[in-house]
């Protein structure tokens, strides 16, 4: 009784399933290929390399995605119950070995290929002449610090931290090196110069994330984490916190402005004047 009903209904259900799988696959692939929603343009060489690796990965996963979903659609429709007998076979070792090897080469190869971009950020430090900028996260604000003309960051002390009185990172005024330090809630960066970013956090874990740099790095309390980048394209780029840090996580926001060398020098001077 139950079986008869199923046999009658099986063509329409099989067709519906196959059509949905094909449609879902085509729409998904189209949205990826048409770049309806996509990354903003990268502003670093590393960013371009990451984008290229993304496209390579998209290509390989895309082929597997289409093959698997279409394969499923075909199997579902072709082998629906229309009165035939199922063929008996329990497997095929040659095929198992073949597709195991193929996926090993494809997936692990992709992983090894991606090594380069990762190594650029993390296996080597910033070069000699990089501009050091310290970035401190706190619930729910970012503070950038430039060492000033002496090239040295002054001492900070937790007990001196007072966001309300204008000392958000706890600069110690008794340290001469701290006199010329510039603290700012937004960052300016000269185009084409390497920046070494030193990430710190005062309270909980935050995360530095600028889309156009293709960079994300947690700022972890108790740790000092160094990353580096060279931004090439002038413009204003938003910094959003990417690690859940409390109720104001969604509005922990800042701006990194990439500008010409001359504008950068002027910006530093203006900041120093405002700090006095």
């Amino acid at each position, binding site marked *: 009784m139950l079986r008869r009903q199923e046999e009658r209904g099986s063509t329409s259900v099989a067709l519906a399933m196959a059509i949905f799988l094909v449609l879902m696959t085509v729409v998904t692939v189209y949205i990826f290929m048409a770049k309806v929603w996509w990354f903003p343009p990268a502003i670093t060489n590393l960013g371009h390399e990451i984008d290229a690796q993304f496209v390579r990965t998209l290509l390989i996963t895309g082929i597997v995605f289409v093959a698997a979903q279409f394969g499923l659609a075909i199997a579902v429709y072709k*082998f629906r119950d229309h009165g035939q007998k199922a063929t008996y076979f329990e497997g095929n070792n040659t095929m198992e070995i073949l597709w195991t090897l193929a996926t090993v080469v494809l997936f692990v190869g992709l992983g090894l290929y991606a090594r380069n971009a990762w190594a650029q950020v993390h296996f080597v430090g910033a070069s000699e002449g990089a501009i050091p900028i310290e970035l401190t996260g706190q619930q729910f604000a970012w503070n950038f610090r430039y060492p000033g003309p002496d090239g040295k960051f002054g001492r900070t002390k937790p007990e001196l931290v007072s966001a309300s009185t204008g000392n958000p990172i706890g600069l110690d005024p008794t340290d001469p090196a701290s006199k010329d330090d510039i603290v700012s809630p937004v960052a300016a960066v000269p185009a084409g110069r390497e920046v070494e970013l030193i990430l710190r956090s005062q309270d909980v874990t935050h995360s530095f994330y600028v889309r156009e740099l293709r960079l994300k790095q947690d700022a972890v309390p108790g740790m000092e984490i160094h990353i580096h980048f060279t931004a090439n394209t002038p413009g204003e780029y938003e910094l959003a916190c990417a690690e859940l840090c409390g109720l104001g996580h969604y509005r922990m926001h800042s701006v990194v402005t990439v500008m010409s060398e001359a504008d950068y020098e002027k910006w530093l001077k203006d900041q120093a004047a405002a700090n006095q």
Partner: protein
Amino acid sequence: MVTHEDGGGHGHHQAPSGFIRKYVFSIDHKVIGIQYLSLALFSVFVGMALSALMRLHLGWPTAKWFFFKGGLMTPEQYLALMTMHGTIMVFMVLTTAPQSGFGNYFLPIQIGAADMAFPVLNMLSFWTTFLSLLVMIAAFFVTGGAPIGGWTSYPPLSALGEMAGPGQGAGETLWIIGLAIFCGASLMGALNFITTLIDLRAKGMTLGRLPLTCWTWFVTAILGLLAFGVLLAACILLLLDRVAGTSFFIPGGLVVTDQVVTWHKGGSPLLWQHLFWFFGHPEVYIAILPGMGVASHLLSTFSRKPVFGYRAMVGAVCGIGFLGFCVWGHHMFISGMSPYSAFAFSILTMTIGVPSAIKTFNWLGTLWGGKIQFNVAMLFALGFVSLFVSGGLSGLFLAQPSLDLYLHDGYFVVAHFHLIMGVAAIFGMFAGMYFWFPKMFGRFLSEGIGKVHFWLTFVGVYAIFMPMHFLGLAGHPRRYFDTTAVGFLGPLQPVHVFISVAAFITISAQFLFLFNFFWSLKAGKEAKEENPWHATTLEWSIPSPPPHDNFGGVEPVVYHGPYEFSVPGAADDYIPQHLAPNLVRKA
């Protein structure tokens, strides 16, 4: 209703007569299985209600609703909903239903045992789970409300108490205690599953004749045994940091809203992340492996064909289980962990794609050349395969640290894990429910309502989670209360509206399932035959519902592999595992 009157008469297998011993503090694995499934059914609707509130806010952030104070949701309410949604779904649904629910009910029967190895321990593990659910839900009702730190509960946010935010006081403490209790319950369950499978298999039930469902429950139990112990330790350390002034996870020199934290120093926030993800990644497989077992089982049964590459499937399940313990670091690429270990974790993670691909190929191989029957159980199993592919492939992006630099902690990740460990696992459960319901309750779920439920859910989950990939590409961070504070998020708001509408349709469809469940329990078509699906495994050799000691005091003997469908020379297109070779009808 379940009847236990016709027990076999073996001393301790005698069915208890009182209501309390029979249905509440029962030591019958079948009753305990149903208790677990009921707990998961309750929890999944709670978890879904929480996500409905989140989607309501994300879709229409400025609309006013009478159920919020002042008409609007607050950021801390949003984060509390998010935290509790994740926690309840991961622990109370994805960990309990596929393993403790279906596994409890069907593992002993499928291997030909009268009960689990330790029935009292089994009862204890259920009631411990129940207690942990109560403790967690209590977090909603204490001062400050439920915790806001996410289901991953990273310190110092989770370790500093109220000063770190509302919900991080009593709510967070209850959350940690609830989770620790849950770990205890899961450890008891895992021990029981492993012992049962090793010791209580019927004569002839060799490892090579185990149904793939049993293999996945077995490997899942091993994962649980190794993973939950670590989470338990982590929870205890976190609790000590909060209540006993220790500093396992809290470094010195912290300043929280201008207040210096002088009473902590020397701890490491990264230590928690290592411990948590050492548990957390195997947990993904704890959720999905039983679904793989059910999918394999059903694809074979309803294409009337043996599983393609049974040995490769078993190997892949074991491979996924083993590799699952070697990849936790891919959750920590941006955490400040050594970049060299990140690279090693990346390659290991790419490797885990291999057994996953083997499974997918073999599922297609199982369907190929078959005679596919489209009942609702099979539709959900097919849906599982499609979702597993869609959700799994995005993992290849996230496994590469250079790409993860951009995608980490964004909606691409949300899309990835919801598709694979969320909805794919849930499709495995639905498939199991439609398949085994007649065995458990003696009646069928309605196929008509079931089909509507399937289609709305299948199309719905794709409509919800596919667009989240694109939010992720555009750089949308996760756990964001709204899109107003960051300029580039504003243009993405229409996608949120689309997702919310899809979510409400999909959520509504789940009430069809709820109705189907309770209506069919009372009025569903009766399952008069023992084996209405013409399936092969041992649960189909006994009455529906099964008697108290499963096999009426007679230990079954197993003669065949689990998937003997359409065997050449046999008259029927299935050979039950218990059928003596001389009783197999010749064509």
